[in-house]
């Protein structure tokens, strides 16, 4: 990692810590009802920061996305943060649930950026797009078989939100993931196709050690 990148990464990590601290502080401040607009603005900002930080960190550590460990860690963080954001404790401290929500948003943004990076580094958009769509459809089938009737649960959560255990969360994540992934996969596929044709027309082989075969020969 070059020094400027390391500095940038350090700044992002510090920023992430600050946002979490700000969230903890804000959660303990009793704001008057008249300050609803300010609370809303701060809450929105709190969601913008994790997105920016997640995307920034994913970009800084872009080489890490080529290893399975980075994916495993991010997915574990997303799952844990997702569970935490749903309030696993009956009476939990608000800051724990809030921190988990922010981490969920940040890790989600990082994962999305990482997916984009890998999709533009590797020509795997077709495989990812096709198998992801399959995963979503079969995910819903399995969800229905295991978790029961989610249409009834969804209506229940809309008609009686106070008693509903928020059952529509995971199905929404599935469909949202597919909706977000599709344009990325399509763009990556189109870009790689254009690149393949352009390289063929220009008679260029893949660069090895920074140079193509022709370039090395012409030296």
């Amino acid at each position, binding site marked *: 990692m070059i020094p400027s990148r390391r500095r940038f990464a350090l700044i992002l990590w510090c920023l992430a810590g600050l946002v979490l601290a700000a969230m903890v502080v804000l959660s303990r401040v009793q704001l008057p009802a008249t300050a609803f607009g300010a609370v809303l603005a701060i809450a929105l900002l709190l969601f913008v920061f994790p997105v920016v930080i997640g995307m920034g960190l994913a970009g800084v550590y872009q080489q890490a996305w080529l290893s399975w460990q980075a994916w495993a860690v991010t997915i574990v963080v997303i799952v844990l943060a997702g569970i935490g954001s749903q309030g696993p404790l009956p009476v939990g401290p608000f800051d724990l649930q809030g921190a988990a929500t922010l981490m969920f948003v940040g890790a989600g943004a990082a994962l999305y950026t990482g997916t984009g990076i890998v999709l533009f580094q590797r020509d795997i958009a077709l495989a990812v797009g096709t198998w992801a769509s399959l995963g979503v459809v079969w995910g819903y089938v399995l969800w229905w078989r295991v978790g029961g009737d989610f*249409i009834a649960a969804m*209506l229940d959560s809309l008609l009686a939100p106070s008693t509903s255990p928020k059952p529509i969360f995971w199905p929404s994540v599935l469909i949202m993931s597919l909706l977000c992934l599709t344009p990325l996969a399509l763009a990556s596929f189109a870009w790689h196709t254009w690149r393949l044709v352009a390289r063929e027309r220009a008679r260029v082989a893949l660069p090895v050690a920074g140079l193509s*075969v022709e370039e090395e020969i012409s030296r």
Partner: protein
Amino acid sequence: MASDDRELRLNILALPNQQKVIVVMLGLVVFGTLLGIGYNAPTSLFWALAVLLLGLSFRQVLASFEAEVRNLRLRAADRRFAPLEARIAALSTSLGLSPPPILAIADEPTPRVVATWQRRYITVGEQRAHELLALLDDPQKQLIADAVLLHELHHLTHGDHLWIEYARSLLRNGLLLILWFALLLIGIVGLLALVQRSFFTYVTPATVSVIAEGLAPGTGDSVVAAFFGSVEEFERVAAEARQIDFTQVLFNVIANTLPYLLICALLLVIYWQRLLHLREFCADAGAVRILGNAEPLTKAMMLGFGSSEKAPAASRGLFSWIRTWQASIKHRLYSVTPGQRAGMLRAPERLNGPAWKYGLTIGLYLLGLNLIISSTATLMLLGDWPMHFPLITTTALISLYLLTPLVLGQPTGRPLWIALIAALSLHTGTIILSLGILGGLAVVAPNLMIELLEREARNLAWYTRLDSSRIAGDPLSIFATAAYVNLAQIPVVILLSAGVLVIIVSFARRMLTWYRLPGAEQKLMRYISIMIGACVAVVALVILPPLTDITLLRFAESASWGSPFYWAMIGLTLLLATGLGVRFVQLDRQHACRCPCGAAVTGSFTLGKRCPDCGEVLHPWLGVSYPDPATAPIPMLEVTP
């Protein structure tokens, strides 16, 4: 080496390119099926799939090249290998290959070709490249290096890198695309089946109105109107949805995709191995033809320049064991041993194998097609023969097979019948087995038989617009109809196919005596291929349609007799056949049974036949002479580069 040691052998490169034939066959199956279903289907989904598959398979050729360059860690050959590059350029020029391929150093030691339309590389491991340099340095051993390079260059002149890579891309993409499509459809249908009842129970106009009112008071009616149109409309759609038989839909999806998956997998296993073996044998034949000697190539193989005897070494990474296992299976299935290659050089006429084996390979291909386009029940329900395509394919492929004995002057009757019976035996066996099951069900469980046929009828009705009411009737009479339409075709197909083959063989035998044909090396096999195509077209378009109507006793009711398209098709085919026939007679008068020197030559052509007058070998391009690689002395085996 004394010239009298040389033996005249069949030049397999002079015969029609078997690799291209196989790739065309594969393309016919994959695209023909999609387009065939798409032609009658009420949706353009299958056309879209065919176009998608075409585009993806071409794209995959380019993507595979890039992946191969990356996996082999291809790098430019430096100045140390300049003599090797110069030799490649010189040999390429002699083969008319321009521009010459570029030498690249790879992690894999065995020399190979990595190429696309515009980019062509001969790759070799660094150690092997040094060994080739050492061989080139020694005038006595230079031919060994030439044999290795010529073998690789022949892959390029033969177009192996494109034809075979395209076939692989097509089968792989076809398999994955349809697998994905099938699993997605099954998942969606399964989900719809689960959701259907719940959706129409809970998501009613009243519920939606309550939710909308809760979110934004006063919007209930407009949201309901936007979602459902009206309450009556909702009730109508709900009633229609409740009537959908999702089991039947699921059956349709599986019945329309599973055979396709099976055939792609089957073709991949059978023909991929055949294609890879043919690729190596043809490249060997090309190299030996240029060198006029098989000895350097066999020595190169003994020095390890051919395909490796060992499976690839274990790769690194998380799933390395899967990759190692996969590589080992592939190696066992597809690699060609030096022994097999030397055997083929010794007896090139064995390229297509024995007649029964060749016939069985065609039989498996036909069986796969049968899985897709028909079944015993389909036959009866559609009231037509799906044997047209098997008959045409069998006739064309066996004709190509018989060219080898024809050129060698061997009898063709026995291989013709063996290949024909082997090719049609699997299909015939399937028909008899299916009829046995149908007959058994008609007696033991008639209701089950009717139910199965009705399911099949509904499945077919989707893309053939078949009237499924035709299924009604007594199970035994239905079985009798099915038995007749299935069994009646068998003798007709075998006899018709044999008859056409005899005609094709007679024409080809005569055409092989066109010794005076100018440019015979380039033209004769093309003319023979055109003749085979014309005979098959006449059978398919002129003979088979009326013969089907006559045998199925529907001569009077057949709609095709009143169709101008039908008569135009027959007229055009006959016109074309007449034109070709006239041309055949003209060429035959000018060139048959006469040596280029003008002397008359009697009897059929046999490889190595000479003119009785001038003593020149007739059609010398059909043969290639070199000493037997097994008995040739090996004075240079002590080579240790």
